[in-house]
Structures are given as C-alpha cells and as structure tokens.
C-alpha cells in the first residue's frame, strides 16, 4: 500500500479576471489554441440552449442542460486521444459532441430514439449513462481490457458530485487502484445533485480526497478554467498511459441551469448563489483572455455564432426529419440471435402498431 494522504493539488491557470497565470504549463500559452477550444465551448452553449428550446416547444423529451460545464467538457475531451474511451454521465453530452458524436445523435437520444446511442464516431465509447455512477465500473472494465491487450489506451469516466456517494464510484476507484488501471475518474462538481448541495452529500474535505480511500491520486482543478482542465486531464491520462495508474480529477464548476427541463431550481436554491457563480463561469474569463491577446472580439464571436447556429439548425432539422424506427427494431437488437419466443411477440407488436407517426 502506498501513501496517499498527501495534500490535494488545486489547479487554476486562467483566472476569473482573464489573466493567464505565468506558471501555466508550457503548451498553454498559444492563444490560438485557446481560441479553438473557446469556439467549441461556444458551440456547446448554443447547442444546449437550442435543446432546451426544443424541449419547451414539445420537440424533445426531458433534457439535462450542461449550462456552465462547457470548459470542463471541452477540456476533458481535448485531453483525450481518439482511441481512448469515454463513459459519460447523462449530463455530459458536451464531451461526447467534442469526441465526434453528432448533434443529431444527441438529439435523437433525448428525443426518445435508441439510434442516438449508435453513433458513427467514436464507435467504442459508451453511450450516455443514466443510472448514476454505474459507468465508473464500465470505465474500469474498459481499462482492464486495454491493459489485458497491452494497448496504449485510457478510459475516462465522467461522474457528478452526487454520483460520488454511490458505492459503485468507490468500488471502481478501488479496483483501479489495485490493478493500476489506465483510467481517469472525472467528477464534475457542479455543487448540486438536483436539490442536494454537495455539503449534504458528504463530509469529505473535497471530493478529490475520496481518492485516498482507494490509494489513488486525487487532484482538483477549476472546472471553469479550460487551461487547467485540459492540463490536469492531460497529466492524468499521460500517467495512466505510462502505467502509472488511475487518477481522480475533481473539476469544480457550477450548474447554472435547472437540473433538467422538468426541474425548477428556484424551489431549492438562492438566486444570489447563482449570481455569484455566474461571475466565475468559463466564458467571461476566456473572452477576456482572448481579447487581451487581440484574437477575439464581439464581431468574431457573432460571426462564429451565426455559423454555429446554422450547423445546429441543420442538425435539428436532420433530427426532426428522422422518422421513427420500424417497430420491430425494438426486438431485433435484444440478442445476437433472436430466441424463438420473441418471434410471436414481435409479430404481435407489428400487428398492433398504429403509431408510426410521433
């Protein structure tokens, strides 16, 4: 057993006022790179608000907004390699988008269509995971497969602050520690699990401290700081790839929106807390930084947003134009080979299907 009671590091490089710390890691000082990441963040934000609108107008099911998480999502995805594997929670579709899942696929998922999880890219990533924290074990298992085959790949699980209370989260860290698995557990600490604030989830000093129970490294970063997020994910992934074992990365951010489109956060949290958090959110500081480097301004942003909006409109149209799957598809993928007893049931379903229109 190794000693892991050391103090937990906290990383922040891009300060809320838009200044980039002089200590920021080499490789973070190219503003053009940051601008690229910022564009992804913008795209995520526009998409997210579009999805909320679609739900409001009855064109999408319940949808969990990632408003406020954009730096965390883009930073996690930017640090991963294509061949790595993501095991996302239900909220972190932004990471999936950055990994290549299409907007239309994301919309299909929340639009009640299984094909949303049959994304063309990246084929090995796990689909959205709704039962909280269960995906942490899948990531550990994926890492066992990579280790078994001697592949230089890592698995990344994304979990929430509430999700750290589930035994599955702890069990996943523990097996990862024992087998030094190439896996990174990301906790997006957005301070709330629906109506439960993180202080009511645990008395742990920080969520990163939970790593100590598994004897693995824990680290915190400002989840609104795209530079810090990407950097600490890169460190963790590099370590994992080299056989150095797993890391728990706590990204501290804030859920600026309601829990989902059927939630009303006004019932359980104070507006002034949200206001304070809004001052620290990722876009303000990134804009300031880029402006200070003279590579971003309102006009560029407007141009980019227009482009975004067009892309998103196209994806939405694609989504809305996607007819329902044939009813038998709900039977066809249950097993590699369909058992006899399902054949009659499938025929029954087809017989009674009169709902091919939504």
């Amino acid at each position, binding site marked *: 057993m190794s000693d892991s009671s050391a103090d937990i590091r906290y990383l922040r490089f891009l300060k809320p006022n838009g200044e980039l710390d002089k200590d920021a890691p080499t490789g973070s000082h190219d503003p053009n790179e940051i601008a690229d990441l910022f564009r992804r963040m913008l795209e995520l934000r526009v998409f997210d608000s579009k999805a909320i609108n679609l739900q409001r107008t009855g064109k999408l*099911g319940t949808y969990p907004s990632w408003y406020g998480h954009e730096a965390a999502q883009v930073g996690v995805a930017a640090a991963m390699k294509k061949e790595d594997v993501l095991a996302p929670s239900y909220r972190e579709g932004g990471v999936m988008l950055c990994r290549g899942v299409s907007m239309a696929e994301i919309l299909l998922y929340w639009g009640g269509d299984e094909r949303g999880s049959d994304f063309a890219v990246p084929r090995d990533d796990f689909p959205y995971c709704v039962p909280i924290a269960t995906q942490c074990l899948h990531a550990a298992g994926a890492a066992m497969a990579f280790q078994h085959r001697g592949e230089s790949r890592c698995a990344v699980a994304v979990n929430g602050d509430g999700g750290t209370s589930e035994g599955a989260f702890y069990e996943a860290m523990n097996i990862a520690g024992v087998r030094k698995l190439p896996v990174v557990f990301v906790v997006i600490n957005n301070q709330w699990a629906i109506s439960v604030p993180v202080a009511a989830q645990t008395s742990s000093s920080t969520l990163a401290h939970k790593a100590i129970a598994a004897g693995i490294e824990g680290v915190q970063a400002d989840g609104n700081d795209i530079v810090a997020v990407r950097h600490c994910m890169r460190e963790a992934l590099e370590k994992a790839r080299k056989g150095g074992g797993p890391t728990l990365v706590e990204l501290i951010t804030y859920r600026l929106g309601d829990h989902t489109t059927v939630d009303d956060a006004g019932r359980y949290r104070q507006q002034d807390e949200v206001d304070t958090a809004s001052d620290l959110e990722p876009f303000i500081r990134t804009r300031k930084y880029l402006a200070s480097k003279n590579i971003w301004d309102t006009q560029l942003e407007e141009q980019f947003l227009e482009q975004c909006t067009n892309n998103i409109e196209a994806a939405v149209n694609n989504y809305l134009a996607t007819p329902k799957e044939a009813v038998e598809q709900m039977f066809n993928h249950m097993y590699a080979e369909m058992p006899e007893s399902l054949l009659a049931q499938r025929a029954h379903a087809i017989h009674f299907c009169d709902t091919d229109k939504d």
Partner: protein
Amino acid sequence: MADVTLIDALTMAMAWELEHDDDVVMLGEDIGLNGGVFRTTAGLQERFGPQRVMDTPLAEGMIAGVSIGMAAQGLKPVAEIQFMGFIYPIVDQMINHAGRMRNRTRGRLHCPMVIRAPFGGGIHAPEHHSESTEALFAHMPGIRVVIPSSPARAYGLLLAAIRDPDPVVFLEPKRIYRSNKQAVADNGEALPLDVCYILREGSDVTVVTWGAMVFESLKSAEQMSAQGISCEVIDLTTISPIDEQTILESVAKTGRLIIVHEAAKNCGVGAEIAAMVAEEGMYDLRCPIRRVTGYDIVMPFYRREMDYMPSVAKIGDAIRDSMDD
C-alpha cells in the same frame, strides 16, 4: 372534501402519519426542500422538519440499508426511490435483510418500513425512467408489494403500508399520478392489504390487472360491454402475497381469465396468477388463460414506448379471442 390526485392522496397519507406517529420518518433523494421530483413529499419537510423528512446522499443501497437499521430499532421509515429504474441497488438489502429479519431472529427484530417508488411508462420519460419490475420484489419472501390505482386507494393503502409491521414495497403508477381526481377523506383510515379490489363486476371474462393498466383494462371492458361481453375487472392491488380467493371466485364465475400488466411477460407477476389458476381453478376455465403484457424486451425509449405497452386494443383483442375459443 376536495377532489385530489393520486399524488395529493399520497402526500396527505404521509402527512397524516407523520402527524400521528412520531416514529415515522421519511428519507430519500430530493424529498426535502424540493418535495421530491414528482412533488409527492411537497411541504412535508417544511411542516415536520428536516429530522423527520430527510434528504439523503445519492445512494439507493444506503437508503434501504439505513431504513432496515432504523426499522429494526423501532422507527418506521418511509423511503423514496426516485424511479424504479434506480431501485436495483436495494435488492440485496431487501432480499437478504428486510425480508428475513423477523424470521431469522424468530421475531426478535422486525422491519416496519416502506420503500416507495414511482414505476411504469407512458410519460415520455428518458431511458431507465419507465420500468416495471415488481416481479423481482414479489419473488422475495417476507416482503409485501402493493400498488394503488386510485387516489382513495393510494391514501388508504399507503397508510396501511406504513402501519404494517413488515416491509412493504409500495409502487406508484406515475402515469396516473395526476390523471384521475377523486374525493378522498383525510381521516387516517387505512384500507386492507392482501386483498384484491373488484372494480367492475362481470360474468364473461375476468381481467386481473394493476397500476396504470387498470385504466386501459376498464376502458377495454367498457368497449367490450358495447359488444355484449361482460368483463369483471380486478385490481390485484397487493401484488405479493396474492389474494387467491378473489381471483379464483371470479374465474369460477366467468370461466375466462386475462391478465394485464406493463412488465415483461417472462416470469412477470402475470405468470404467477396464471399458474395459480392453472393449479387451483383449472376446471373452471373454459378456454386458455391469456396474458397481455409488456414484451420480453428492454422498455423502449419513449418514441416507441406505447408500442411496448398493453393497450385498450391489445386487451380487447385478447378478450374477444377468449370469447371465441
């Protein structure tokens, strides 16, 4: 006496019991200030305080395990699991402890506790939010499974469940949480457990069902009556243990049995009812038993959920087939 929804009736029952029994406590995710994601516990924390109505960390196995500990030490916990799709981490505690504490200690300790969870489809919810897996709990000895299908039964049965000295899994058909209002007297009167409720009398076919499917079945019975077929509709209500007598008596009268449930067919509770009648009431049957159930597939995402579920048409078809046999 105002008309109330099924949800309102549940809230009323919980408030009544919190008011009248100091040993009753509530726990669950988001049940406090937020009043539960379906607002079933709305206002209860405000009224009874955070020591009686407790938000817990996010861990269902923990919720069941501490409920068992509290119950064994004299409290009457009423725990909420947010959706049935998230109930599975409690299976271990329920089967290995809640259902056997009384038996394994020969009565020294017991578990007067209730696990409440909304279940079933039909509300266009996301993945994992529409499951019906009551059969898993029905197979566990020592555990009662109860499902109400009207505001009045919700009120009376939840009171009975909380007062019952043994563990009860109380499943709430969320599709009808708010659909059919009814006048419910807030008088603290419980309804009996372990009995079926006959909702419609009839002489040709017995339809046994529960939860939201009660409505589809009643509608179908209505349609059938226009065609001259008289259906008896029985709300099973206590899913386990089953009230065999009421069902057998009905089948003795009608000679035909249809079972309707949302859950998958294979090893669903419908199988038990059919088996019981094939054992005890076989000679009364004029034709094969029929089950109208969810298919043996994963509950589809919401665009196709209605194709998965039993419908008025599917039930009607089975009834007519029975009559033709």
